[in-house]
């Protein structure tokens, strides 16, 4: 027994040495001319040949040693791990997965305070903590949550009902401009305009829905894309109302049931006797968007257990079968469009209140594409997966701004945020290869008789529009 093990071990070792040498030889052949020599111009404009044997040796060594380590240690270790732990891992994962939404929710609810706490400890003063937390609450927290909400809203249309909507940002724009225009012209408050923005967006959803309901798949996608562009072009060109590309500025901020977040004596800070800081408004906005996003999630979860939610999913699976069961697919599609659009409208009015300024530039097609990418990456229909995807994609691009050390590597004129779309694309490719149905591809059934079992992604369909 020990003998066979030993020979097995030795044969792996011998194989690894052989492969390592082969890899080194290959690297030598490949890089000797590319890396080993370099032509430079000297001061007299003559071409000189520099020899870089040291660098070449590093390349060859890395290739040879890397291959050796891979074959000798990493591959056997991986195989053994997979063999031993398959059963155990599955069980562990499922318990982790079960509690994941709760952990995530707890983290979201305490996030601003955690940030302030950590930064206070780091800076040594409460004021420093408060001011430092601005960036993290606003750029990360609020920004990510807006996209989480938008993606959850779009998830109703794309993930549940299977209608590919490339113009979702139109509803976002309708919500934002509803709030911006009505509050600047009529002075209506945020709390009144928030539901109104949602209703307006839903009406637009129905208006879009009617003509496009006959279309399926690619055709639907194209028409929704066009609709998104139409809305944006109207916003640009209807200058009398929208002020065109200048946008609408000076939009009223949201208030906490009438208490404004202003520095004056009637402001929030003064009333509570807190030191003056802009961070309260940001924290308020954070909880507001968190509430709106959770409302979206709650409604989605509830709707999935309603007949309408099941009809949406059935529509995604097979429209003809739906009709044969007496389901009016027209109204079912319309409700999906309207519900999704409504949440887009909520998010839009929040966006306007947060920015204090809206312009058509915020509602370009790229936004629609990003929201759709988040839904697809997260796993269509899965709320948790979509939230993770939004955190990774939006948080990731925000994080790129913070990576100062990249400048030290790539030079001072390197601006990492310019590469965010590149990284976005790369991340999408990686995720789609690694998990073709998104982070969470499994579907949770809406009802069960004996036991709630996840439905594997191999059975669910993406819908045909």
């Amino acid at each position: 027994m020990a003998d066979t093990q030993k020979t097995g071990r030795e044969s792996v070792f011998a194989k690894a040495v052989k492969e390592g040498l082969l890899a080194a030889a290959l690297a030598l052949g490949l890089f000797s001319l590319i890396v080993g020599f370099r032509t430079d111009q000297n001061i007299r404009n003559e071409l000189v040949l520099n020899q870089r044997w040291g660098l070449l040796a590093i390349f060859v060594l890395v290739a040879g040693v890397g291959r050796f380590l891979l074959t000798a240690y990493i591959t056997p270790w991986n195989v053994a791990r997979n063999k031993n732990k398959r059963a155990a891992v599955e069980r562990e994962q499922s318990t982790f997965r079960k509690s994941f939404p709760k952990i995530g929710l707890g983290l979201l609810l305490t996030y601003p305070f955690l940030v302030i706490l950590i930064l206070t400890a780091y800076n040594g003063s409460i004021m420093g903590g408060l001011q430092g937390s601005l960036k993290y609450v606003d750029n990360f927290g609020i920004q990510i949550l807006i996209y989480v909400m938008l993606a959850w809203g779009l998830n109703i249309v794309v993930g549940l009902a299977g209608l590919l909507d490339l113009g979702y940002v139109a509803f976002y724009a309708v919500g934002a401009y509803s709030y911006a225009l009505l509050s600047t012209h009529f002075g209506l408050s945020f709390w009144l305009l928030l539901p109104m923005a949602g209703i307006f967006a839903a009406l637009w959803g129905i208006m879009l829905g009617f003509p496009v309901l006959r279309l399926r798949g690619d055709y639907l996608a194209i028409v929704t894309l066009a609709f998104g562009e139409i809305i944006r072009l109207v916003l640009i060109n209807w200058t009398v109302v929208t002020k065109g590309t200048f946008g609408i500025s000076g939009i009223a901020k949201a208030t906490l049931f009438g208490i404004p977040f202003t520095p004056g004596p009637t402001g929030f800070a003064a009333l509570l006797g807190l030191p003056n800081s802009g961070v309260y408004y940001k924290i308020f906005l954070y909880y507001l968007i968190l509430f709106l996003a959770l409302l979206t999630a709650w409604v989605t979860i509830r709707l999935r257990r309603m007949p309408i939610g099941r009809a949406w999913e059935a529509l995604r699976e097979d429209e003809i079968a739906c009709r044969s069961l007496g389901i009016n697919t027209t109204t079912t599609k319309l409700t999906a469009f309207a519900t999704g659009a409504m949440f887009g409208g909520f998010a839009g009015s929040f966006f306007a209140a947060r920015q204090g300024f809206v312009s058509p530039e915020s509602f370009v097609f790229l936004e629609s594409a990003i929201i759709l990418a988040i839904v697809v990456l997260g796993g269509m229909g899965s709320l948790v997966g979509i939230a993770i995807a939004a955190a990774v994609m939006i948080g990731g691009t925000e994080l790129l701004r913070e990576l100062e050390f990249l400048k030290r590597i790539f030079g001072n004129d390197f601006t990492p945020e310019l590469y965010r779309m590149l990284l976005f694309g790369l991340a999408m490719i990686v995720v789609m290869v690694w998990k073709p149905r998104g982070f969470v591809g499994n579907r949770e059934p809406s009802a069960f008789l004996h036991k709630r079992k996840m439905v594997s992604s191999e059975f669910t369909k993406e819908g045909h529009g």
Partner: protein
Amino acid sequence: MVSEVHNNPAAILRVERLSMKFGGLIAINDLNFEAKRGAITALIGPNGAGKTTVFNCITGFYKPTEGMLTMTRQNGEEYLLERMADFVITKKAKVARTFQNIRLFSGLTVLENLLVAQHNPLMLSSGFTVLGLLGFPTYKKAAADAIEKARFWLEKINLVDRADDPAGDLPYGAQRRLEIARAMCTDPELLCLDEPAAGLNARESAELNKLLLDIRDETGTSILLIEHDMSVVMEISDHVVVLEYGTKISDGTPESVKNDPKVIAAYLGVEDEEVVELIEQAEAAGVDDITAAVDLLSTEALHEIEEAHPEMAPTALIPATGTPKAKRARTAVAGAPAAKTAPGKSRGAPTPARTPVKPTGATKAGVISNALPEPRGGKADKLILIQGIGPVNERKLNEHGIFHFDQIAAWKKADIIAAEIYLDFDGRIAREDWIGQAKRLAREGRTPAPRKTGGAK
């Protein structure tokens, strides 16, 4: 006919003067029939007869070009189905259907599939979602009732244990049963089943029979069914309507339909007039002005019929096989059962064990000059490698003593004519240059070529 249908109060569905045209193609032509309440009505016919089109008209997926479809519900309400949208037909007129190619919601669980079917009553009890969203108790109760109803049907179709599995994960037979149960969950009064036994094995088919009889007897639902499986049709249906080329050719009890010569002819895929002619000729036995070759062919045709459908006993209709019968019986008869009823659809009927009829001395002269009694070396060439010869024709050629490429290559004009007669081709052999192809293939000799699969659909 129409008035007779009209006066019958027992009919749940009356189909009157139904026509459906797709451009120039007439899929259904002036069809009249009725389905009785509380009975199982079978709609049969060869492929392409327009059965599924009739279903699609009844369930609103097609709008008929002409005609009237009257559904009379138990409470006396009458619905004109041709004027209603498909989902309204299920919702109001209470007609449910299944599909030839199963259309389950594969990503939903078995239970959810049955809950989706109860969409309309649940929608009402949830106050169009608003009350349900707010958690009103009416919806909770309705939801629990819906699950109970689903459980009832799951028990009926033996799928309670798999209620929480995705529907796409079920074996084929279970998916068929689930589709029926799903249709039943819409509380239909008329259940339209499009080939429910397709793809089922004998045991599953028997279970299906029992399920359908249960549905009829316990719920009083009338059933209209399209089926190719004769064991299902003959065993459970109370009434059979036979279609061919969009027209009704027979209508009555399974017994009477079974013995209708027109049905036999249609179901074997022969043009009526030929078989009628064949039968008339047979009855007037003795008239003889045909060649020996045709004689052989008609004998074979009868063998084929006999083998394919023993229960129909065509020999009873046509006495004394072997005597000259038909003036012009083309060999379409011989190849018809295999050619016109696709494999898998004719599963119910016993497939004939084909023993090639070796030409006897008497008939040899009339057929092909270089026919062989059996392939040389016991192994025939793959004649289907020739463009234009499919498996059916290959078999026919084998039956007539043609086994090798060089035989075809050596055909003379008379041989071609003889071959065309029994293959029912005119000019095709020359057009497709079988001889040239055969010569080439014979030259290439025994080099193995990839098997042609196109012909054996």
